[in-house]
């Protein structure tokens, strides 16, 4: 079974299903608007006091905010719902069903859910990024755009890997909802470039919860700050996270015996 084709089937059916619930769309739109407004107020408060924040100008910070919104949308539409379902499955023993399917179990548990309306955040993020680019008054080269997209994809992969590892803890301790809340709190920290934080927090945001790579690095790609070294480092780290997450998943799976009947 081709995992992409399978993912598409899940996506298609999930989307068809969610399109029936228009109210969700308006609620989501409202939420996105609130997130955008509070973000903008935060920015104007900061720039009422100073002219730049750790070397980032107002327009550049707007770009960071755009990426943060976009990535948040990706998390909430594609990553978080799947991981929540995985947690429930481990708790209820219904993971048995996924494990008796002729498909890679990790791939299967990662594509089953998709919250279509959460994509509003992605859209709003893209608009904010567009406005930021216009304000920056730089012309983005093709290479820069490609680097930006690559950085976004790698960032999303890293976030997925961390989330999968955290969720895999459920194999041992069953309930991990609190850890997920912690993760959300840390992701909120990505609203600002990681450079503004003290060293210890920056390290945590880089390696424990790779918000630095998910948000700051793509924003750097847009604002001409990205070095080839950072990009290479990001690629290496992504690979490491992928291997690590796979390992944790497989070990976790071995200690899963299913909730007894």
């Amino acid at each position: 079974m081709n995992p992409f084709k399978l993912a598409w089937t899940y996506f298609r059916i999930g989307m068809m299903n969610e399109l029936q619930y228009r109210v969700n769309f308006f609620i989501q739109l409202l939420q996105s608007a609130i997130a955008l407004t509070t973000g903008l107020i935060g920015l104007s408060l900061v720039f009422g006091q100073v002219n730049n924040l750790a070397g980032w100008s107002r327009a550049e910070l707007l770009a960071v905010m755009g990426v943060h919104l976009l990535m948040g949308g990706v998390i909430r539409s594609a990553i978080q719902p799947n991981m929540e379902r995985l947690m429930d499955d481990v708790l209820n023993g219904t993971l048995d069903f996924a494990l008796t399917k002729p498909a890679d179990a990790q791939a299967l548990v990662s594509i089953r859910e998709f919250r279509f309306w959460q994509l509003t955040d992605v859209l709003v993020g893209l608009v904010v990024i567009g406005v930021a680019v216009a304000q920056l008054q730089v012309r983005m080269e093709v290479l820069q755009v490609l680097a930006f997209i690559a950085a976004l994809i790698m960032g999303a992969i890293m976030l997925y890997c961390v989330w999968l590892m955290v969720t895999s803890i459920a194999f041992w301790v069953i309930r991990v909802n609190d850890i997920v809340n912690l993760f959300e709190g840390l992701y909120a920290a990505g609203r600002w470039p990681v450079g503004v934080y003290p060293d210890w927090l920056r390290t945590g945001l880089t390696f424990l919860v790779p918000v630095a790579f998910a948000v700051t690095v793509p924003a750097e790609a847009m604002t001409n700050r990205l070095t080839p070294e950072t990009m290479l480092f990001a690629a290496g780290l992504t690979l490491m996270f992928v291997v690590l997450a796979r390992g944790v998943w497989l070990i976790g799976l071995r200690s899963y015996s299913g909730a007894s009947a």
Partner: protein
Amino acid sequence: MSSVITISQLSKHYQVPEREGGLKAAITSLFNRKYRTVKAVNSITFNIEPGEVVGFLGPNGAGKTTTLKMLSGLLHPTSGDVRVLGYEPFRRSYDYLRQITLVMGNRNQLTWDLPALDSFDLQRAVYGIPVDEFKRTRDEFIDLLELKDLVNKPVRNLSLGERMKMEIVAALLHKPKVLFLDEPTLGLDVTMQRRIRVFIAEYNRRNNATVLLTSHYMADVEALCKRVIVIHHGRILFDGDLSNLVNQFSAYKTLSVTLQNPDTELSQYGEVLSKDDGRVTLRVPKAQTSQVTAKLLSDLQVDDLTVEDAPVDDIIDQVFSQKEEA
């Protein structure tokens, strides 16, 4: 023809942490944890031939589900051999998984918010079933279980019985050769149980599928299984024809007598189990059945008399209690 399922000296032991009650013991166990080995399945051996429907019986915690999980590749055996269709299940090879299915009566795999039809489509994608074949199978099943009007409703709006029927359709769309059914009729009303039973029998007949079924409802077992395997404390107590189980373990028969004079005292003939509307039920040792029957007929004015085996439920109960004592 070779067996579909071969199990030889199969065991599964769990290490479970053990501590005494109380806070002190709880704290001690954080640092110095004692483990106890639970032999959930303890060296069991049996074969199942193609097309057989076998009832797998035992009280809660006997090791039924553990065995089913080892057979479906969810658990790695501690020792012993297990092969299904020539595969070792715990390797979870896709070729193997494509030929089996697992139905658990107490758990759902259908997506709650989606119409069952969409969940069926997902099954098609996961198993890579060709579209034509998929549609044919799906419609056949929907027909057999009379689900036509329900497949477009979100699963959460279905009754328990309707949902279970959908679950079974979803689990069989890929036409598995081996079915592991763990309490497929759990909690359903009698009519619904019968429906599902008939469907499983029909599937078995049409596809020559092999079925291993656990159920607490003896009616399921009596209707579907010629052969039963009884497991208790992880060991096999009985493996053979259901009728043999009855003969071997049933020490009593039940006589129901209707007399012309309903007030006659019958306790001298056997243990009186019940008495209503002039109909008396007696429990009589199996060896004395014909003697007692003859005596009843000659001594009294009998309107009606039937002789029955004890209900299988009671027999199973006896099997467990006898072995406990032994």
